[in-house]
């Protein structure tokens, strides 16, 4: 961040401005160059992200079902009608609550496991470290779909090794609401702790050895070192991994969809993302599905704002 002295881009001679078109006239040659570099990204994002988000918002205010899609009926403006329907629906409120609680549980468990293993990594020799690193990369690399199928199979009541090992007989994990959520949580933690572990480990490695040695010489325990020395120094990294985890776990789709077969028995394991999809594509209520999408968007936007404030407070320059 020390290299952030604003480079005097504007003062460069015209010859160095490159082949940017439209640089002939302006007094500040090269002023268009960044926009030229940004052009492909902005076109793609505008057409395939901003426009769909706009459409999503629009549809959420309309009455939009199969009849409107096929052109049989004209679309009609509903105002906040869809949102009113949504929030007066007890199932939606229940799914919203389940999503928040479940995402929080996933985030906390993932962070705890990831940080604990990152600290562990610093205390072992090269070989065990490599072994754990490789295993974690394996879990990380596993596609969500295959990870889900494998975990369902591991906990299969008939042929899975876990029930056998724990002596649970033919207990079905996906039958009960909480056991199904617990199973999904295990899979989510399994595939997302490696990101936390690797990132935090990289962060710890960057902490000067002297600091830690001094703490150890002063007789600080491991927990104390973590709490009073490492955690404060790693704060920026911890903020990043926490926010990323919140975003990923709040948007969870594949695991729930595959492991609980589209939301569990009678929708007991639905989370917002799956619920929106089911509303839209299974029951053709596109406007309600879009409204759910907008609600998710707003919640994640709030998380982002908190993130930005934290970044600002740390004095990070964007």
């Amino acid at each position, binding site marked *: 961040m020390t*290299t952030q*002295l604003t*480079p005097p881009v504007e003062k460069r001679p015209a*010859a*160095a401005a490159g*082949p*940017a078109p439209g640089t002939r006239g302006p007094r500040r040659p090269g002023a268009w*160059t*960044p926009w030229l*570099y940004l052009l492909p*990204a902005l076109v*793609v*994002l505008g057409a*395939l*992200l901003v426009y769909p*988000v706009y459409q*999503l918002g629009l*549809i959420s205010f309309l009455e939009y079902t199969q009849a409107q*899609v096929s052109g049989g009926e004209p679309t009609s403006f509903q105002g906040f009608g869809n949102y009113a329907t949504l929030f007066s629906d007890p199932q939606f409120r229940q799914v919203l609550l389940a999503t928040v609680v479940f995402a929080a549980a996933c985030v906390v468990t993932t962070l705890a496991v990831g940080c604990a293993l990152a600290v*562990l*990594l610093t205390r*072992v*020799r090269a070989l*065990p470290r490599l*072994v754990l690193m*490789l*295993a*974690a*990369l394996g*879990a990380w*690399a*596993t*596609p969500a779909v*295959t990870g889900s*199928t*494998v*975990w369902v199979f591991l906990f299969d009541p008939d*042929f899975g090794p876990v029930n056998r090992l724990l002596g649970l007989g033919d207990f079905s994990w996906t039958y009960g609401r909480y056991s199904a959520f617990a199973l999904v949580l295990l899979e989510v933690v399994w595939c997302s702790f490696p*990101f936390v572990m*690797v990132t935090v*480990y*990289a*962060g710890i*490695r*960057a*902490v000067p050895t002297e600091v*830690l040695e001094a703490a150890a010489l002063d007789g600080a325990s491991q927990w104390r070192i973590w709490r009073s020395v490492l955690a404060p120094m790693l704060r920026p990294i911890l903020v990043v991994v926490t926010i990323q985890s919140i*975003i990923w776990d709040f*948007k969870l*789709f594949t695991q729930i969809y595959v492991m609980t077969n589209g939301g569990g028995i009678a929708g007991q394991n639905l989370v917002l*993302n799956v619920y*929106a*999809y089911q509303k*839209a*594509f299974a029951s053709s209520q596109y406007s309600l599905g*879009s409204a759910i*999408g907008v609600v*998710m*968007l707003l919640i994640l936007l709030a998380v*982002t704002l908190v993130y930005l404030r934290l970044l600002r407070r740390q004095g990070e320059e964007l």
Partner: protein
Amino acid sequence: MSALRTPGVRRPGRLAAEAAALLAAAATAFPLYWMVLSALKPAGEIQSTNPRPWTLSPSLDSFRRVFEQQDFGRYFLNSLIVAVTVVLASALIAFLAATAVTRFRFRFRTTLLIMFLVAQMVPVEALTIPMFFLMRDFGQLNTLGSLILPHIAFSLPFAIWMLRGFVRAVPEALEEQAQIDGASRTRFLWQILFPLVFPGLVATSVFSFISTWNDFLFAKSFLISDTSQSTLPMALLVFFKPDENDWGGIMAGSTVMTVPVLVFFVLVQRRLVSGLGGAVKD
């Protein structure tokens, strides 16, 4: 390398720590081991209610069934085409954009950066609805383009955000030097900056590769009638049957789907670790 390794000091807890690390590694690797093992087990052993953690008669039957029963090779190729196209395109576009937002000062720069950050939060799945109508209007339904285009867009914000750190790490002095030596800005961009940022591009592309390779929601929604355009995750779900899951087939299919990502990960492993450190630290 390790920051905590104090030379000469024998920690009594180290053996315990190493045992714990190996135990954690075993627990983490077990699902993958079980996946490959089950894919190799003969049908009789998979359907056994007393599963053993080894097999004495490995067979490739499940793999054969996977590749024969469906157009699996075709799906594999489709998945690969989509993922590789997305990785290349988004890496290139993200590199240019990251350069713009780190090496230049211009109006709306901070606004743009915040937009990129916010764009990461967009729940992609929620956009399936408008995206479906968009693809229909573009005439892209039932083509691989309907998977490639959205995934380029969805992987861009994170890629740009992450590449910033790498581009910023290249000293300004280098650019000035190149200029004094008479290199044009384009030349600096491709012949100096690009190779230097390349490790970062590799680390970033892991994420776009995975999210594209994993996708089954878009494939499920956009490739409705033309199954020859289908991708791997779709093919995998076919083996799920309401009453009798073909676990051998599912595990063999999962193995085939996981291996390319694993290979990719192992290849870029070192760059990924240092890349994440670099991106997060700055």
